[in-house]
C-alpha cells in the first residue's frame, strides 16, 4: 500500500510535468476558463482557487460546499466551462452533483478532485459523466495541466482530452 502510494505520489519523477515554461505561462490573453468549484474545505478551496488562477487562467464563477447548493446552481443554467468536484462534502456527495449534471446534459467538463480516488470511485465517476478523476494529493499537477490544455484550446470538446 505504502509502496504503491509512493509510486503514485511522484508522477513527475517518471514523466516530467507538462511543459512548465511553455504552455503553462498565460502568455496569450485568452478568455479565462469559467470554473465552478464544489469543495467543502475552506482552506483547500482558497488555495486551489489561487493556484488555478495563477497557473491555469481559471476564473472561478461560483462555489458550493454541499451537494444541494451545487445542484441548485446547476439548475440555474449559468454558462461555465469546467466544474471541479470533491466527492466528500459537508452534506450529500460529489457523486450526486455529477449525476445532476449528467441528467441536465451540462455541456461543460466535469472533473473530480478527491482524496478518495479508488478504482471503484473512478469507475463510478466515469459512469456519471466525469471527464477525469484526480487524486488530491498526487495528481494536482495533472489537474493544472488539464485546465491549461482546456483554456489554451488543446482540447476543443468535452471528453476529448485524455
Amino acid at each position, binding site marked *: *500500500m*505504502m509502496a504503491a*502510494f*509512493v509510486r*503514485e*505520489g*511522484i508522477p*513527475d*519523477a517518471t514523466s516530467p*510535468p507538462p511543459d*512548465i*515554461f511553455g504552455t*503553462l505561462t498565460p502568455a496569450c490573453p485568452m478568455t479565462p476558463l469559467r470554473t465552478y468549484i464544489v469543495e467543502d*474545505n475552506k*482552506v*483547500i478551496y482558497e*488555495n*486551489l482557487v*489561487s*493556484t488555478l488562477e*495563477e*497557473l491555469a487562467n481559471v476564473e472561478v464563477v461560483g462555489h458550493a460546499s454541499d*451537494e444541494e447548493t451545487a445542484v441548485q446552481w446547476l439548475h440555474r443554467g449559468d454558462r461555465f466551462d469546467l466544474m471541479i468536484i470533491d*466527492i*466528500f462534502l459537508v*452534506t*450529500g*456527495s460529489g*457523486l*450526486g452533483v455529477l*449525476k445532476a449534471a449528467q441528467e441536465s446534459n451540462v455541456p461543460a467538463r466535469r472533473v473530480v478532485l478527491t*482524496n*478518495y480516488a*479508488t*478504482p*471503484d470511485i473512478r469507475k*463510478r465517476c466515469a*459512469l*456519471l459523466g466525469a471527464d477525469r478523476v484526480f487524486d*488530491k*494529493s*498526487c495528481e*494536482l*499537477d495533472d489537474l*493544472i495541466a488539464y485546465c491549461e490544455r482546456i483554456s489554451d484550446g488543446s482540447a476543443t470538446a468535452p471528453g476529448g482530452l485524455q
Partner: protein
Amino acid sequence: MPSSPPLPRRRAPWRTPLAIVLAVLLALGVLAGSEWTYQRALDSLANLGARDTARNAIQTVMRRLLDMETAQRGYLLTGRPQYLDPYQAAETDIAHAINRLREHYRSDPELMGLVDRLQERAGEKISEVTETISLYNAASHSAWQGLMLTDIGREKMEGVRRVADVLMVTEERRLGIERAAIYRTLGAGRIGVYGLTLLSLLAYVFFLRKNAALQNSQIEHALHLQKERDSLESQVRQRTEELAQLNLGLQEMRDGERSGLARALHDDLGALLTTAKLDLTRLRHSLHTTDPEVTERLRHLSASLDEGIGMKRRIMEELMPSALHNLGLQAALEHRATQFEQHTGITIDLAFMPVALDVPAQQAMFAVVQGALSNIERHASATMVSLRLAQEGIHAVVEVQDNGLGFADRAGTTSASGLKNLRHRIESLGGQFSVHSVPGSGTRVLARLPLRHRDPDPSTPRATNPS
C-alpha cells in the same frame, strides 16, 4: 446480594410428642373401654347362668317332692310297687339339687340358711312319706291312714313351698339386679364408643387441619423461594441489560471519537497537506529553475508530502472507513471487498441490495464484514468468498461465506473473541448474529439488524447508487 430472610419455623410444639401421647391414650381408652364392657357382660352372663341353675335346682326340689307325693299316693291307693320308682329316684335328685344350691350359695350365709331350712323341710316331707310307706308296707293301714288324715303331709309340703318361694323371689330379685347391671354396662359401653368415636373424629379433623396448615406453609415456603429466585433472575437480567447498554454506549462513544478523529485528520491535517502540495506546485511553476539540486529537493519535498498524505489516509481509514461515513455501507463494503481481492487474489462474489440502516447499524455491519474478511485472510485458506447485503422483511442481512478450512471450536483464540465482540455488538443493537462453521467445509457469518426508517437528516450522507 440481598440475603434471604429466615424462614418461619412452622413446627408447633404439639406436633410430635403430644399428638403421639394423645393417640396412644385414645387407643388405650378404646381398648380398655371395650375390654371392661366385655368383661362386665361376661360376668353378668355367667351370674345369670348360675342363677338359672339355682332356680332349676329349687324347681327340681319342688317337682321331685310333688313326684314323691304322687308316688306315695299312687302306692297307697293301689299297692303297686312300680309307683315307688319315682319316689326312690326323687330322693336322689333332691339331694343333688340341694347340693347344687349349696354350691351356688356358698358365699351367701343368709341364703345358705334358707337352703338349710329347705333341706330340713324337704327332709321332713320325705320322712313323712317314708313313714306312711313303711306303715303301709307293715300293713298297719289304720296308722298310715291316720297319719294321712292328720294333714301333716300337706303342712310339710306347704313349709317346703314357702322356703322355695322365698328362695325363688330372692333369685328373681337378684336376676333383675344382674339384668340392670348388664343394661348399664352395655349403656356405658355404648356411650364410651360414642365418646371415643367423637374424640377420634375430632382428632382426625384436628390432624387434617394441622396437615392443611403444614401444606399451606410448605406452599408458602415454595412460593417465597420462587419469588426470591425470580427476583434474582430479574436482577441478573437487569444488570445484563445495563451492561449491554453500557457496552453499547462505550461502543458508540468509541465510534464517535474515532469518527471525530478521522474527520479532524481529513479536514485539518488533510487540508494542510493538500495546501502544502498546492504551494509546492505553485512554487515549482514560479521558480523557473533548471538547477538539478533544487529540482531534486522539490521532488523530495513532494514525495515527503505524499508520504504524509498517505499516512494520514491510512490512519483515517483504520479509524473509520471514509466510504462508510461519506458514501454509505454499500460503497464501503465494495471498497473493502476490492481491497480484499487485491491483498489475497481471491475473488469475492458480491450481491448487494440497498438497505436503510442508521449510522451505528451501518458501522456494526461493516465491522462484521471487516472481521469476517480478516478471519478469512488470516486463517481460512479459502478460494471462494461471497458477500451478500440484502433486505429480508424488516431486517437488513449481511452474510459472508467462504469455502475455507472452517473451524469446530476456536474458543479462546483472537478470532473467537473477535466473533464474540461482533455478536455482542449486533445483539446490543437488537439484531442476531450467527456463525456456522464445519471443519473442512468453510464458514458462514450472518448478521441481521432491524431496518430503520431513515429520517431526512441532512447530516446523513446520501448513498448515491449510479445505475
